[in-house]
């Protein structure tokens, strides 16, 4: 119950339910009771439809590394907002917030991407409609 409360709270605070507004509902793919926040190094960006995907190497506490996949907004939506494929590059250090895929795999909605200097890039669909 507590988890659900915080998941919904984060939705209201950060607008992270926003992938729902893209290709289809987030509830079809992501578990809104499992928020994810990781930091790591971008390894690959797929500038593809219906959502872009980017991959981040995340160092675990035991020293192993997990490669997480995160989905973002459709490329056209980002391009209209002046965000191009060069906005996020392999090697970039980022913090990613979103929700984990329903199958429990290391995939999620990449709703908020923050650089070390605080800049936030293509926060999946954050403010879509307001910022377009």
């Amino acid at each position, binding site marked *: 119950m507590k988890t659900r409360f915080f998941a919904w709270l984060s939705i209201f605070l950060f607008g992270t339910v926003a992938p729902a507004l893209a290709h289809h509902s987030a509830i079809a793919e992501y578990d809104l009771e499992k928020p994810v926040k990781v930091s790591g190094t971008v390894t690959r960006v797929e500038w593809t*439809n219906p959502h872009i995907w980017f991959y981040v190497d995340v160092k675990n506490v035991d020293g192993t590394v997990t490669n997480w996949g995160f989905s973002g907004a459709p490329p056209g939506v980002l391009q*209209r907002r002046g965000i191009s494929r060069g906005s996020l590059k392999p090697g970039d250090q980022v913090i990613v917030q979103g929700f984990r*895929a329903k*199958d429990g795999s290391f995939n999620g909605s990449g709703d908020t991407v923050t650089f070390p200097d605080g800049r936030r890039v293509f926060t999946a669909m954050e403010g*879509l409609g307001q910022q377009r």
Partner: protein
Amino acid sequence: MKRVVVLLFIALATAVSAQTPSTSTAVPRTGDGKPDFSGMWDNPKPPGARGPATVFDRAKFPPFKQGGEPFYEPRTGDPRHDEPRAFCMPSGFPSAFLGPYPVQMIQNARTLVMVTEFMRVARIIPLDGRPHQADIEPTYYGDPVGKWEGDTLVIDTTHFKRWSLDDFYYVNPKEYRMHSDAFHTIERLTRVDANTIKYDFTVDDPKIFTRPWTENWEFKRHPEWDKTGLFEMVCNENNRCPGGQCVKQ
């Protein structure tokens, strides 16, 4: 003689400029004198509204027909049922055209084409006042026909499959609204100025509701989008997690 030519030139220039729209609010027209809706537009919204997908206002719903078909579709937990778009099934009309994507309109005397960036869905609407086709199969986007009532274009659409009405379930995942196969829409488009189309959208679904109701929305023009037009959007390129089951990297 020279003076006459100069005066004629001035008179001609004045006449031409008088016929040229002098302000940006003038309504453009096609060669046949009808309002021209061509251009890039934001998805229709209530006047002054911001935000992403537009949904039908529950406060306007008329009473349900007693013994009528269900409007709310229970969730089953099966993502193929609960969100078929996750598997690249279509949104249908009007849902696809209400999402947070631009709509491009292209018009000539015979046809209006409305294309939404969402999956690049196109509605091809004949404007010659023809009746609906007879004996055609129901579809996700229906059979639209258009006719002019003065400067207002009236688009009447029938022959729908039973399908989701709008994206309200993004707002409340428990409320999945379905129209019936008797769904019938009437759109009235009036270009009130260069940047606005008044868009009155009437829903008539006699298997569910006791009477039709109308939303008063508008399209807002975005000339800055003309340069790029619509971006491509396809579903099957990299749909990695359909129904929450992700394809391995």
